């Protein structure tokens, strides 16, 4: 796939190529997750759980456009995706086949079958793995940013999380540390309004996640999370602050989780009317419509794009299915340095 270019935004808006790359990445993300959740999972080909970000693609993509990717570890940004940020992995260059291999427990996935679903990390792609304990990556991102400051670079950490994560102590203490030390972190919340079955009102007493920022003395901005350009703008401002050494920013994209918590959850607790309302705000349809209006794409072009993406995924699925399982005794490798696990790096 052609990953979007490393970003210049914050300085100016996305150009034509950027806009088309954004559309492509949003569509690829949606299609890949649909394939995983609605086909491969039901066919029993995914060995564990499935967590998707359907309806939230604009946040990962709008923010992800700002991640600096030059291939030079001394210049590149580092990302901490959440479990609903498939697009971020793809934009960092973790290919669909490796994502599928991860889901299928194959040796070729980023964790060689040691972990599943979105728990993918790969330092060569500057991606730090999410873990199930929500918010753990937030102080880790602060420590990563601390290193950038010690080295005097203008690198930035992109820390993604959901609304539910902001209830955890690690989230609080990580944001607070970053704020106190004025570290170059951009905190990006995909507020999808549900933490598993628990609605936002039972998660927090403030109206918006961005309101929490005032408690840390940092700026907080809430934007329409289904408007990829609004997310792009807001994150661009936050990245500019971070690169300038001013400190962290909390950006909230308000969106909606258009699925259950995971593939086994039918989300019967979400009112139908709410889902219907948000279906009308689909970020991909909306963005495609905007690009059509501006004459950047046409109907035929969109159909062709979808066809190309399906083909790309077919190839990736075929590849992942033919990928090897780990050898059973690999279970024992790599708990410590020099015990075999380093070999696959």
């Amino acid at each position, binding site marked *: 796939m052609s990953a979007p270019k490393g970003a210049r935004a914050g300085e100016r808006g996305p150009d034509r190529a950027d806009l088309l790359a954004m559309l492509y990445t949003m569509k690829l993300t949606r299609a890949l997750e649909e394939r995983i959740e609605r086909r491969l999972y039901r066919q029993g080909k995914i060995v564990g759980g499935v967590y998707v970000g359907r309806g939230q693609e604009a946040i990962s993509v709008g923010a992800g456009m700002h991640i600096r990717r030059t291939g030079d570890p001394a210049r590149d940004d580092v990302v901490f995706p959440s479990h609903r940020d498939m697009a971020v992995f793809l934009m960092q260059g973790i290919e669909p086949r490796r994502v599928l291999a991860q889901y299928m427990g194959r040796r070729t996935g980023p964790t060689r079958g040691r972990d599943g679903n979105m728990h993918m990390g790969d330092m060569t792609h500057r991606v730090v793995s999410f873990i199930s304990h929500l918010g753990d990556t937030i102080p880790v991102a602060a420590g*990563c940013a601390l290193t950038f400051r010690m080295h005097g670079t203008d690198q930035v950490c992109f820390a993604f999380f959901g609304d539910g994560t902001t209830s955890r102590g690690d989230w609080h203490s990580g944001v607070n540390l970053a704020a*106190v030390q004025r570290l170059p972190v951009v905190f990006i919340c995909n507020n999808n309004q549900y933490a598993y079955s628990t609605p936002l009102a039972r998660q927090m007493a403030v109206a918006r996640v961005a309101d929490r920022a005032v408690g840390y003395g940092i700026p907080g901005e809430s934007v329409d999370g289904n408007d990829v350009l609004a997310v792009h703008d807001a994150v661009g401002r936050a990245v500019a602050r971070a690169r300038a050494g001013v400190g962290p920013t909390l950006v909230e994209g308000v969106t909606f989780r258009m699925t259950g918590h995971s593939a086994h959850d039918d989300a019967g607790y979400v009112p139908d009317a709410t889902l219907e309302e948000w279906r009308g705000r689909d970020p991909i349809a909306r963005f495609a419509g905007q690009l059509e209006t501006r004459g950047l794409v046409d109907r035929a072009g969109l159909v062709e794009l979808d066809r190309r993406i399906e083909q790309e995924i077919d190839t990736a699925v075929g590849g992942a299915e033919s990928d090897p399982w780990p050898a059973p005794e690999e279970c024992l490798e790599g708990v410590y340095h020099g015990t075999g696990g380093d070999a696959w790096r």
Partner: protein
Amino acid sequence: MALTTYVEAIRQGIWEEMERDERVFLLGEDIGIYGGAFKVTEGMLDRFGEMRVIDTPIAESAIVGAAIGAALMGMRPVAEMQFIDFISCAFDQITNFAAKNRYRWGAGVPIVIRGPAGGGVHGGPFHSQNPEMYYVHTPGLKVVTPATAYDAKGLIKAAIRDEDPVLYLEHKYLYRRIKEELPSEDYIVPIGRAAVRREGRDLTMLTYAAMLYPCLEAAEDLRREGHEVEVIDLRSLLPLDKDAILTSAKKTGKAMIVHEDTRTGGIAGEITAILNEEVFEYLDGPVLRVTAPDTPVPYSPPLEKFFLPDKDKILATARQLLAY
């Protein structure tokens, strides 16, 4: 030659590693301007500057999390827990993030988490704990417990150079009570190697940290009764030096374990199982243990004295075992 205390040995070890390797930096509560609650980091802010000696908010999960993030970027952070009791606040970061990272996706986390452990100073339930076994039960971590000034320095240096997360538990009772002459040249004590502190052929005492000293005193008393006791200082609990344990047990045929940690789930149980599995036919008696009882660490002197193992308790158990 000047004698160096245990606490000064730790300080020297960190200092030398910071001079040697600019990737090494410190973070923790009150470690900068104040020099640490026990003065382990005294003078370091002046020498190394605020980029490398970082006073943090009171949030152990953030301290350890930030150390992990810096380690992933190639740094060698040393995180201080003001009292090791507070390490529980960072339990999740240590056991789920740091310990599992290399196994999950190959990115090692070379961090050191250090702090004062142990009782004997009337610190009460929250300033006296021995939390080692929570972490010994976590694959991916290393846990070291120096008992001498030489080891305190050599093990902190080894821990800082290690590629994996190391918990370095310093015993606060020993901080200023023991001292010895240290070599002037650079040295490390390898992680995972026990030390024979006293040789003997009749009974093996396996111990670590502050309990080394009552064991040595008990061994001396027993010598006067005609028994030669071998005293092994484990030094590392994870990895455990199985060879040293098994070699000594095979030699003496009688083994007991002494630790300040509480009884149930203490390392004594694990060592007993290893002895059972590997050298059962060499043993002339049951493997016995002297430990703290299964209670929190109490504050008041008579209670704490009752709680802590001491020479008399060790002697009683040793005599019981020698009678087989």
